[in-house]
C-alpha cells in the first residue's frame, strides 16, 4: 500500500491543516537552512551510521520489550507489554532525538545548542549529547520547575550545561520555550535550537519524530518476533507528543493496530487543573505552529497543570492534531491519582519505577486491560524511569502507600 502518512508533513511543514512555520521573519532563513541540512542527512549514509552507532553503543539501544505478566494477571484481561525506553542512557526516550539533533547541529557548524526543559529530562539528554559531541549547551527552565526538579538541574550542570532560570509568565515550560526562542532569535547563525518534542515550527515536528521513530521501528520487529503478531493496542503518554509519535509512526499504516495517546487530566477537567490540549483545546497558533491548544476566549494560552512536569504544556505536536481529526489515534485522559496508583503498581508488581509521565500510559492500560480478552495485546511506550520523581512522590503521596 502506498503510504498516506509517511509523506507527511508536506513541504511547508503541514500535517493536514496543522503545523507550518509561524515565526517572526528573522527566523525563516535559519529554519530553512535546518530543513535543507536535515533533508541532506536524512539520506546520508555516514550520518545514519554515526547515529546508529551512538544509539547502540552509547544509548544502549535497542531497548527491550518486556511482557508484564504479573501486571496483566492482576488486571485480569489483555496482556500488557512495555517498550523499555526507561532503560536508555539518561533514563528516557529524549536521548533519541537529542543525539540526532546535536549530530545535525555539529554538521551544520553550530557552536551551541539550546533548549527549553520542563521536568529536566530533555535538558539532561541534550546536555549529555552536547558533552559527548563537544558543544556548548544552554538550557532554559522555569524557576518553579528548577526548584521542583533540582536533581536534574544538578545533573545538567555536572554535564557542563548552563541552566538559565526563566522568571517570566507562568515560570514553567511554556515560558521556557518563549525564553529559548528569544535567545535563538538573537543569534540564529551560531545557535541550534534543539527543541524538546515534536512541537515548534517546521522542520522540528518532522525531525524530532523521525529521530524518535527508532522506537516504533524496533518495537514492530521485536513484538512480532516475540508474539508472531502486531500489538492490538499502542498506548503512550502525550505531552508535546514525541514518545507517542516515536512509537506510533511505524504502525500508522497498520489499520488493525489501535492507538491511544494519553493526556493528563491532572486534578480535574476544570480550567488550569489539567493539560489535556487535544481533549479540551481548540486549534490555535503558538510557538511557531498550529495545533490544538488550551486557550482563553482571547487566544492567550491557559495555565496548565499535571503532576508530571513533562506533560504540562498547553499545546501539542501538530501531527497529533491531524491524527485526532482523521481519527487514526484516539486521545484519552488519565488524572494525577490514577497515574500515582500506576506508578506504585508497576513498581511493586514488576519492579519497574516509571516516570510520572509514563505512569499515565500505564494507568490507561490498567483501565482498559480488564475490559479486553486475554488474547488481546497492549504495548505501552514506557518513555522514562521514575528516579527523578521519587522524592516528590514520596513526600506528596507516600503515606497513602505505606511510606
Amino acid at each position, binding site marked *: 500500500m502506498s503510504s498516506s502518512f509517511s509523506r507527511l508533513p508536506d513541504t511547508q511543514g503541514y500535517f493536514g491543516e496543522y503545523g507550518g512555520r*509561524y515565526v*517572526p521573519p528573522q527566523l525563516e532563513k535559519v529554519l530553512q537552512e535546518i530543513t535543507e541540512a536535515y533533508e541532506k542527512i536524512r539520506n546520508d549514509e555516514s550520518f545514519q551510521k554515526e547515529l546508529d552507532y551512538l544509539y547502540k553503543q552509547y544509548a544502549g539501544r535497542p531497548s527491550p520489550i518486556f511482557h508484564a505478566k504479573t501486571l496483566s494477571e492482576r488486571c485480569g484481561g489483555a496482556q500488557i507489554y512495555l517498550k523499555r525506553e526507561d532503560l536508555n542512557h539518561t533514563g528516557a526516550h529524549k536521548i533519541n532525538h537529542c543525539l540526532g539533533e546535536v549530530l545535525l547541529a555539529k554538521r551544520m557548524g553550530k557552536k551551541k545548542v539550546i533548549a527549553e526543559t520542563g521536568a529536566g529530562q530533555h535538558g539532561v539528554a541534550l546536555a549529555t549529547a552536547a558533552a559527548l559531541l563537544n558543544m556548548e549547551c544552554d538550557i532554559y527552565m522555569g524557576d518553579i520547575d528548577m526548584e521542583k526538579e533540582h536533581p536534574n538541574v544538578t545533573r545538567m550542570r555536572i554535564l557542563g550545561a548552563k541552566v538559565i532560570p526563566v522568571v517570566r509568565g507562568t515560570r514553567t515550560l511554556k515560558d521556557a520555550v518563549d525564553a529559548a526562542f528569544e535567545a535563538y532569535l*538573537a543569534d540564529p547563525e551560531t545557535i541550534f535550537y534543539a527543541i524538546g518534542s515534536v512541537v515548534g515550527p517546521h522542520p522540528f515536528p518532522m525531525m524530532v519524530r523521525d529521530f524518535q521513530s527508532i522506537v516504533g521501528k524496533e518495537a514492530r520487529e521485536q513484538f512480532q518476533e516475540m508474539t508472531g503478531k502486531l500489538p492490538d493496542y499502542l498506548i503512550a503518554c502525550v505531552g508535546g507528543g514525541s514518545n507517542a509519535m516515536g512509537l506510533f509512526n511505524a504502525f500508522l499504516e497498520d489499520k488493525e493496530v489501535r492507538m491511544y495517546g494519553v493526556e493528563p487530566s491532572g486534578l480535574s477537567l476544570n480550567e488550569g487543573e489539567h493539560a489535556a490540549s487535544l481533549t479540551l483545546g481548540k486549534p*490555535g497558533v503558538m510557538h511557531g505552529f498550529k495545533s490544538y491548544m488550551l486557550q482563553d476566549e482571547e*487566544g492567550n494560552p491557559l495555565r496548565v497543570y499535571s503532576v508530571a512536569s513533562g506533560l504540562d504544556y498547553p499545546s501539542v505536536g501538530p501531527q497529533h492534531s491531524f491524527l485526532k481529526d482523521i481519527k487514526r489515534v484516539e486521545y484519552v485522559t488519565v488524572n494525577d491519582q490514577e497515574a500515582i496508583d500506576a506508578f506504585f503498581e508497576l513498581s511493586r508488581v514488576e519492579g519497574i519505577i516509571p516516570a510520572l509521565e509514563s505512569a499515565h500510559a500505564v494507568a490507561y492500560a490498567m483501565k482498559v486491560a480488564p475490559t479486553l480478552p486475554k488474547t488481546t495485546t497492549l504495548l505501552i511506550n514506557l518513555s522514562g524511569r521514575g528516579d527523578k520523581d521519587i522524592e516528590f512522590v514520596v513526600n506528596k503521596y507516600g503515606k497513602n502507600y505505606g511510606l
Partner: protein
Amino acid sequence: MNKTLHEVIARKKAVGDFLLSLYITAGYPHLKDTPQIILELDKAGVDFIELGIPFSDPLADGPVIQKASQIALNNGFRISHTFEILKEVRQQSSIPILLMSYLNPIYHYGIETFLNQAHIWGANGLIIPDLPLEERGLFTPFLDKYALDLIYLLPPNAPDERLHAIDDASTSFVYVVAYAGVTGRENSDPIHILPFLQTLKKSLTHPFLVGFGIHSHQDIAFYSRYADGVIIGSAFIKYLEKVTEKNIPKKTREFVHALTSPPA
C-alpha cells in the same frame, strides 16, 4: 489598501520628509490611558501609530514589551478594548493606526470578524509579526473590502528572493527589522545594517521604515539618511514606566520632542 495611510506616506515623501511612527501597547500603563497617549502623539507630530494588542507569549518582543503586555493583560485588557480605543481616538483624530497583533488572538477572534471591526472603528492597517508571507492568504481576501493594509516585516538576513517577495506583497511600506532578535535591544549599532539599507534603497519599490532597538535622536538622525522613516517601540514603553497617570500628556509630548529635536 487604506487611503489615509497612503496619503500620509505620500505627503511626507513628496517633501522629502521622514516618517516617525510610535508603538504603544494597548491598555498600558493603565487600561484607560491609550486614547489620550495616541492623541498626544498625534499633536506632537508623530505620523502614525502602531497599536499593540497584548498577547501573553509575544515571540518577537523583548523584555520591555513582554512586561507591558503582561501589565495590560493584568489590567483586564480585552480585544474589544482595541475597538473602544479606536472609537475614542477617531472622534478627534485621523492619525493612521496600524494594529499590531500576534496571529492567535486574531485567529481566535475570527479573522474576518476582526478585520471588519477594525475597519468599522477606523484602523488603517495591520502588522502581524508571526504571520509568514506564505500564509498571507488568510488575510489578503479581506484587505480591500475593509480598506486595510497588511505590513510585512523584512529582516536583515533575508535572502534576495525573499526581499523581492516581501516588496511585491507589500501595498504601503515595508517594515525593516534592524537586527536579528527581539524588540528593544539597547546597544544595537545601526552602522552594521548600513550596507543592507543601501541595498534596500536600490531594490525596494516601496518606502521602508526601520524598527527594533531605535531609542535616540542620534539613531533617528542616522536612519533619516538611509530610510523613509523609523518605528519606535520599547524606548517609549520603557519611558512610560515612570510616568504617572496625570503626567501622561506632558511627558508624551516631551518624549517626542526629545527624539525629534537635536540635543541642546
